[in-house]
């Protein structure tokens, strides 16, 4: 492989010009820990998508109900259970302007709209024949029959031919449709987001503080204090926390504050464990001793050394506590133990939607999608944070 008798030109024997700095060259530019974390997080697409979604959601939740034309509690029973997407029909009947309407396939009623899909009002039938299962509507000279003798119901003209649709339009008055009491689904969704998110955030904060306090003390003092405190946590955590929340809600009665209290006083156990674990490890880390040998005081140790390194897992746990809180709150509301009427949370919306599921599935779609996407977003973000904070993943 190597030719020992290679001839080498004379100049090559001159001393090489080496930049001594090059010898110490380290491959990648060094970043501070937090720059590193931020960079890793930035590159994590699902996490970033999650974060964007959360920001948008929070924005919508705060601003949404302020800008929509409807309120979350306004009811219009005549316009209940209207879908977000309408199939419009056009009828002339010799009037000045044609009339547009659509049929609500759940109750076989007709509603008038304008040509773009803005609702006008419910229409009254001229004649209702329950035996033959047909309703007759008159528009000027034209007649329209709603025939529901067979399902799906059909719209027929005076001669018995099926009407052709004018077009499919998005409901302009109620973008997400209305629910069974004629309330705007969109604004209720946003309002529900507000409630669900607020409960989740506040409850998580409460958990956070209780957990940090409890775990911090337990970890910092160690020894018997730690043993006893952790035993207590063990006992509490053996039972699924949901049961505790249920019991508390039964006692406290449904309500906004109640659910926050219930979640807040129960879910801190995870945070406590994490904080305590961090405390124990960090207390004994070599660099704490190193800092001490350099004369650093206790406060300095805590803030410059212990805290920045503890923050990581705490932040991750915090981010992942939020979807748990959302889940519990909506779960509770779903079984009737969460926020009370007329407040809407995603849980109550889902529960209401289930009742009308057969006829009006769109009402379930929105809260289900909202909950799912939000949980996704937080989970992705939490996972991303966890990956970004773990230096062992540095390639």
């Amino acid at each position, binding site marked *: 492989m190597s*030719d020992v008798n290679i001839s080498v030109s004379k*100049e090559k024997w001159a001393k090489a010009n080496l930049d001594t700095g090059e010898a110490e060259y380290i491959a990648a530019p060094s970043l501070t820990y937090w720059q590193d974390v931020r960079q890793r997080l930035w590159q994590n697409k699902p996490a970033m998508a999650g974060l964007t979604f959360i920001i948008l959601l929070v924005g919508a939740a705060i601003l949404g109900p302020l800008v929509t034309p409807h309120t979350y509690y306004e009811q219009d029973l005549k316009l209940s259970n209207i879908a977000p997407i309408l199939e419009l029909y056009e009828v002339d009947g010799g009037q000045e302007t044609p009339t547009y309407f659509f049929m609500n396939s759940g109750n076989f009623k007709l509603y008038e709209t304008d040509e773009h899909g803005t609702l006008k009002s419910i229409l009254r039938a001229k004649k209702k024949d329950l035996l033959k299962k047909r309703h007759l509507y008159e528009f000027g000279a034209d007649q329209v029959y709603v025939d529901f003798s067979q399902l799906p119901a059909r719209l027929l003209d005076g001669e018995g031919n099926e009407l052709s649709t004018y077009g499919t339009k998005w409901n302009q008055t109620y973008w997400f449709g209305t629910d069974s009491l004629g309330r705007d689904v969109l604004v209720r969704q946003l309002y529900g987001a507000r409630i669900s998110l607020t409960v989740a955030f506040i409850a998580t904060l409460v958990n956070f503080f209780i957990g940090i306090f409890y775990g911090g003390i337990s970890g910092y003092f160690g020894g018997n204090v730690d043993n006893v405190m952790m035993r207590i946590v063990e006992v509490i955590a053996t039972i699924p926390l949901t049961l505790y929340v249920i019991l508390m809600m039964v006692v406290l009665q449904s309500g906004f504050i109640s659910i926050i209290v219930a979640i807040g006083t129960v879910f801190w156990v995870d945070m406590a464990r994490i904080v305590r674990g961090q405390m124990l490890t960090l207390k004994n880390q070599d660099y704490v001793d190193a800092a001490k040998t350099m004369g650093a005081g206790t406060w300095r140790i805590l803030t410059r050394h212990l805290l920045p390194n503890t923050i990581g897992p705490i932040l991750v746990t915090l981010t992942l506590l939020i979807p748990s809180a959302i889940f519990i709150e909506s779960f509770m509301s779903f079984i009737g133990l969460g926020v009370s009427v007329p407040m809407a949370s995603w849980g109550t919306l889902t529960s209401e939607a289930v009742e009308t599921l057969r006829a009006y599935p769109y009402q379930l779609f929105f809260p289900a999608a909202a909950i799912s996407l939000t949980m996704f977003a937080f989970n992705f973000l939490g996972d991303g944070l966890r990956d970004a904070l773990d230096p062992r993943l540095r390639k």
Partner: protein
Amino acid sequence: MSTQPLLEVRGLTTSFFTSRGEVQAVRGVNFDVLAGEIVGIVGESGSGKSITCMSILRLLKSNGRVVQGHAKFEGANLLELSEHEMRKLRGDDIAMIFQDPMTSLNPTLTVGEQIIETIITHRGSSRKAARQRVVELFELVKIPEAASRLSSYPHEFSGGMRQRVMIAMALSCDPKLLIADEPTTALDVTIQRQILLLLKEIQSRLGMAIILITHDLGVIAEVADRILVMYGGMVMETGEVNTIFAAPTHPYTQGLLASVPKLRTANKERLRPIPGSPPDMLRPPIGCPFAPRCVHAMEICVEQVPPTFDMADQELHQTKCWLHHPDAPKNSEDAA
């Protein structure tokens, strides 16, 4: 009359294909191991010494591959055998022990079981016979109360004892070649010595060859017959231990020997490390890998990888350095 070497490695080149590019861990390594001799491979972290041996046994991680070269064990090229044939050799004719015995032993199985399974796999013995053999092995490696320790778990042993277990496990099928990857690095100094002496004693009793990988020159001096000095994925110098320790011919070897603190060093004398850091194997230097840190570096060194030159003083003494080219300037060639 030269006997065929037990292991003959020529041009071994191994790379890892990572998302950041190709890491050339081993670049053209040649060496022989004769039956019954102890060969030490010395080098810094990242020099390629461990990877060389993992390549030979084909134990590389999934993104690693031997891209060139051959490794002939008793005439057969290990790199071309089927996986089935390799399995027969591993643990049987060629055994390997690793650096950290705590993580290298399965924590959920008894040590007895971990050795018994090897024996049964390769020898097809009965359980009873295998157990008996394990007891013999434990006595060989001087584990006290051998018979009762079979049912113990790895975490019940101290570091030194665990390494003895690893050695016992490696010896279980009378290997012809034992590869020991930094067997004493994770142990206390006093235990280190015990383990080394044990290895030497066993070796002379059983007559097997050992490849001993280490970064500690003291270990080499204690145990090895011949030595390979590796740097940047290549063999820089090779020869008999005494020759090399007395008169190293490669600047890197010279630097290594000079950097070892000696008991007799005068109080005020400074330690003499080799300045600089090991090369980045993702983008290794074009020429000699040691050139950036070498005091004697010449233009040719930076431009071209030096060929391997035979040294006059002794057979099998070779150096990969331009300084030993016939035309090289003589005055810069002096021992440190």
